[in-house]
């Protein structure tokens, strides 16, 4: 152990802050080092004398306590006053700015409030719900051939009805076309068309 380390351990030993292991190492070093031993003896004397130094008394203890009590009571009153007036101590400009922000927030809330749907308008949420229903319906239909066929027939009929209703200016449809279109059974219509085509090809 180096002497500088030993001196540090001596100080810790004097404060009662030395582990048992370090105490043994210190003892071993002191036995063989006269310099550190001398330092140890000197420090023991110094420590003993330092601890004997007299304590200092507060001069006029009564006056000291009276003065402290006065000051404490003043703090106590200040604390209470502060607590009572806390809300009223907020400055007027702060109140004004606060109210302004509140009014602005209320205005924006009403301005951007989602209103009821107008005539002919469908809300997005409604559309989304329709879409969901449509998907579910198509998935159900796709699994059933009869329903699928029936639906296809309905779609074709509706297209035919819309086409019949659509008469642009200057259009000239043949009489047979109108007759064919008026036939609701699309199978018959298609067979007739095939026959016509065969007739033409044969021709």
């Amino acid at each position: 152990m180096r002497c500088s380390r030993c001196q540090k351990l001596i100080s810790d030993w004097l404060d009662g802050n030395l582990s048992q292991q370090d105490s043994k190492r210190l003892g071993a070093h002191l036995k063989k080092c006269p310099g550190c031993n001398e330092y140890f003896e000197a420090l023991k004397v110094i420590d003993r004398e330092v601890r004997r130094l007299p304590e200092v008394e507060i001069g006029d203890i009564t006056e000291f306590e009276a003065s402290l009590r006065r000051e404490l009571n003043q703090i106590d009153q200040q604390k209470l006053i502060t607590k009572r007036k806390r809300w009223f101590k907020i400055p007027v400009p702060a109140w004004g700015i606060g109210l302004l922000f509140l009014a602005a927030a209320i205005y924006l809330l009403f301005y951007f409030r989602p209103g009821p749907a107008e005539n002919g308008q469908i809300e997005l949420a409604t559309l989304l719900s329709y879409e969901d229903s449509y998907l579910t319906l198509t998935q159900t239909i796709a699994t059933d051939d009869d329903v699928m066929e029936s639906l296809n027939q309905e779609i074709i009929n509706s297209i035919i009805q819309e086409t019949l209703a659509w008469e642009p200016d200057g259009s000239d449809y043949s009489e047979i076309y109108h007759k064919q279109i008026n036939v609701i059974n699309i199978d018959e219509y298609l067979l007739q068309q095939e026959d016509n085509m065969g007739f033409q090809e044969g021709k």
Partner: protein
Amino acid sequence: MNREEERQLIQQAQQGNAEAFMTLARTYQSRVFNLIYRLTKNREDTADLTQETFLKAFRAIKEFRVSSSFHTWLHRIAVNLSLNFLKKSEPQKNYREYFNSREDRDRDNKLANNFISPENASEAEQLKASLEKAFDGLPTIYKAAFSLVVFQGMSHKEAAEVLGCSEGTVSWRIHQARRMIKEKLDPYFGRTKET
């Protein structure tokens, strides 16, 4: 005052009871006064700083956690106030200045001569006076650590809490303080040995 009584007084003081706090102050005022006096060496300043310590503690007592040590907390306030006060009021001596002051060296040599002189005051009184002077000349941070452990009887751990540093730092500062005091008093020990 036992720990339970102290805890109750602290709780009452936390509710604004100044009399409860006065009881606590009465318990600790002497120790706080002595600690501050060791650092400032001036009675008037010490009285002012002691009062300021208690006032500050009362203002902040709501933030004090009852589970921790009131004694340590109070001493921390006292040390911080004293160190701030000393920082403003006087320039700090560093290690070299502590030993190189010609005035101090002359005084120590004179005292050392008196120390072995039989016609003067007792050896113990001389040593005590020299010790006081050697201690007073220490750097403030060493004095604070030394005072808390040696004069106030705190452990290194408690002193570390008060000073806001590690136990190792406290131990090192006290070691340095002892080494410096011992060097300052070497003339006495040297002369004693010669006789």
